[in-house]
């Protein structure tokens, strides 16, 4: 028996049947029928945001910390266009999200009606897929399809644009069990031949490395478990991209730290010198490879990815295995054990000796002296005082993000939420709110910069409204720090518009919102301030005043290779001479 109900009721019912417990949204004219249906039920809890961009980042944080899709509900026109940044962010970082947008009534589409925009046109390149629903009888099917597309294969954002008349109209509801997708069938199992070839190539390696990324975390807890098992069985060193942090424990013996532009000396040198590279759920991004023609020149490469278009995109690989990480790693482990493969023990001993030599450079060394707080010290103390399986860290984008990635250490997946691909300032606080909604009892900290935090500061109001006790730890250097660093290194220290004049008093600002504010200006006060932050109930903003001109090191300068890193305190190069004119042209 098919049930009939209004389009708005179909939306709520479909969300409930998809297991959605929380949605993040903002009402407006073109979604009022859905908000009305929302009012008359208790299955789904709605979080009212202050700006639609905030809703998308909350959904991202929610999704990243739970491996469930994040759901957003916004109105037409500006509601949809404000969501575009978060949609693009989710597309770049492969975050499953379903965004429902209201649209003007069908008969007004194309007439430049009030709050009309071409939502499917605007969001086509920044979503995995999108739909404009023209018939209420298609609505349920489309919504279930949207969840299928968002969460299967390489995850991503999906927009469902629903005109207001469709929300009012009455139509048939079908449940999620009856939905099969016509054309979208991502391949989950890796080819057996490719897996056997990959195992054979790895078994012959003398200097192997696992280069892991966000795909391991997207694949789920089983993928993380298998990666750790595979690493232990083989003894291969492991590095991760920014998005992959936590898939291998930072406390694990084979951990090399993050790789890439601000990765560790040992990770990048191991990438450069390895002879077999196994890329697992990562995509050879330019922040990872540096100079492409000098990227790991002596290695043969295996690439495991669920998205076939990533294989051979930036870097040619010998073996591309298309499939879900957990599936492929499970098969590789089975083949590895069945074939009795082992790595050459003496070669591995030499390889690890070489890696230990790089480790001995202590590339993350910094000197905390005097009362001026080094930002690295702030993150380090924050880590020591807050670490644990129930702690979740989000960040904004910039220097503080890199210091967080370098000095906060993650032993578990899904504990680290950051905007990697798009690099969206303003991501961190709303993401933290989303995480806190999913994990009410967890400690959720947004490590922020004073510039980034102002891009979505209004969401502090959301945190206060729902009493979500997120902690916002601002590393305040009064500069757009990463911009300032690049201007120092690449543009002759001409600090064009990177100084944040007229900063607000963040303590008073927090109080104005009804949150608590703390300030820390001396290194000696760091621990006490962090403890006070933890002891203060509700949302807390910490304004931590740090060294204004500290730079992020190590750094692979633009246009350089992995083995041409700049090391700050740990190195002795002249920084101002390190970047060639050619390198200055790159972003």
């Amino acid at each position, binding site marked *: 028996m098919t049930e009939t109900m209004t389009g708005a009721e179909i939306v709520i019912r479909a969300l409930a049947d998809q297991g959605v417990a929380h949605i993040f949204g903002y009402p407006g004219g073109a979604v009022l029928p859905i908000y009305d249906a929302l009012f008359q039920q208790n299955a789904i809890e709605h979080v009212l945001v202050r700006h639609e961009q905030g809703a998308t980042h909350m959904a991202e944080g929610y999704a990243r910390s739970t491996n469930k899709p994040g759901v957003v509900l916004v109105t037409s026109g500006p509601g949809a266009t404000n969501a575009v940044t978060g949609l693009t962010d989710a597309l770049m970082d492969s975050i499953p999200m379903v965004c429902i947008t209201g649209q003007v009534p069908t008969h007004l589409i194309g007439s430049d009606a009030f709050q009309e925009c071409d939502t499917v046109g605007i969001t086509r390149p920044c979503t995995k897929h999108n739909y404009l629903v023209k018939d209420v009888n298609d609505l349920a099917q489309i919504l279930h399809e949207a969840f299928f597309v968002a969460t299967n294969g390489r995850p991503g954002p999906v927009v469902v644009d629903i005109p207001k008349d469709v929300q009012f109209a009455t139509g048939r509801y079908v449940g999620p069990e009856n939905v099969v997708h016509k*054309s979208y069938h991502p391949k989950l199992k890796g080819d057996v031949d490719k897996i056997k070839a990959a195992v054979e190539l790895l078994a012959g390696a003398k200097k192997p490395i696992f280069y892991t990324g966000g795909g391991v975390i997207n694949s789920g807890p089983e993928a993380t478990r298998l990666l750790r098992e595979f690493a232990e069985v083989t003894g291969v060193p492991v590095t991760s991209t920014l998005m992959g942090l936590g898939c291998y424990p930072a406390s694990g013996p084979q951990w090399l730290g993050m790789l890439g532009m601000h990765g560790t000396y040992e990770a990048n040198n191991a990438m450069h010198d390895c002879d077999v590279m196994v890329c697992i759920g990562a995509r050879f991004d330019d922040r990872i*490879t540096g100079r492409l023609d000098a990227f790991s020149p002596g290695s043969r490469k295996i690439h495991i990815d669920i998205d076939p278009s990533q294989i051979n995109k930036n870097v040619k690989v010998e073996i591309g295995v298309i499939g879900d990480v957990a599936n492929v790693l499970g098969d590789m482990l089975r083949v590895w054990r069945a074939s009795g493969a082992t790595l050459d023990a003496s070669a591995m001993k030499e390889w690890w000796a070489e890696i230990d030599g790089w480790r001995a450079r202590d590339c993350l060394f910094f000197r905390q002296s005097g009362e001026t707080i080094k930002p690295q010290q702030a993150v380090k103390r924050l880590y020591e005082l807050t670490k644990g399986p129930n702690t979740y860290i989000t960040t904004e984008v910039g220097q503080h993000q890199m210091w967080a990635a370098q000095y906060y250490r993650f032993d578990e997946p899904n504990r680290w939420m950051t905007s990697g691909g798009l690099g969206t300032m303003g991501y961190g606080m709303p993401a933290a709110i989303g995480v806190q909604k999913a994990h009410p009892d967890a400690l959720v900290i947004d490590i922020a910069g004073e510039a980034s935090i102002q891009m979505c500061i209004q969401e502090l109001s959301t945190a206060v409204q729902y009493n979500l006790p997120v902690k916002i730890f601002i590393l305040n250097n009064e500069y757009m720090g990463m911009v300032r660093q690049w201007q120092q290194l690449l543009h002759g220290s001409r600090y064009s518009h990177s100084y944040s004049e007229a900063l607000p008093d963040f303590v008073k600002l927090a109080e104005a919102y009804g949150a608590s504010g703390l300030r820390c200006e001396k290194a000696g006060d760091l621990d006490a301030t962090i403890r006070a932050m933890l002891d203060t109930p509700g949302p807390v903003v910490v304004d931590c005043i740090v060294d204004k001109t500290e730079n992020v090191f190590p750094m692979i300068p633009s*246009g350089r290779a992995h083995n041409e890193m700049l090391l700050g305190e740990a190195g002795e190069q002249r920084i101002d001479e390190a970047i060639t004119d050619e390198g200055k*042209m790159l972003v």
Partner: protein
Amino acid sequence: MRQPTGSAYFMDDQHPPLARHTLAILVDNEPGVLARVIGLFSGRGYNIDSLTVSEVSLETHLSRITIVTTGPAGVVDQIKTQLDRLVPVHSVVDLTLTGKSLERELMLIKVRGKGDQRAEALRLAEAFRARVIDATIESFIFEITGKPDKLDQFIVLMAPLGLVEVSRTGVAAIARGPEGMTG
């Protein structure tokens, strides 16, 4: 300043050989599907030399898009996988790589002239097996089908004889042999 080589941002500095490829794409005939395909080409900087699209199955509402593109082998491979991951795309075949495919294009071409020029245009049209589908005292419209280079050649010949305008459909292509392209 010389552009640096080997960076992800300046991959064009290498000059791998370019090749022309014909791709056949089966898609759901739904609103926006063509915009998705074209947007992928413009968004990622790929070339479209020719594009043809029409529904090919009334029951299943499948459309077939034929795109002729030019690029290095790696880029064409990227185009294929990027197309394949679009949700409404059922399958993509590189007819140039699978070999032995047939390509045809239809062209309507208007030529204006009098006297000898007019007679010459008609004679050449016969040689190219072009049909006259409209005629006035001072003009012809020819309909001609064939491989794209045959049509190119016909245009070259008509140019001095009073070529007015050209309308081409773009390439339709299909693989030889008994096997079909499956959705």
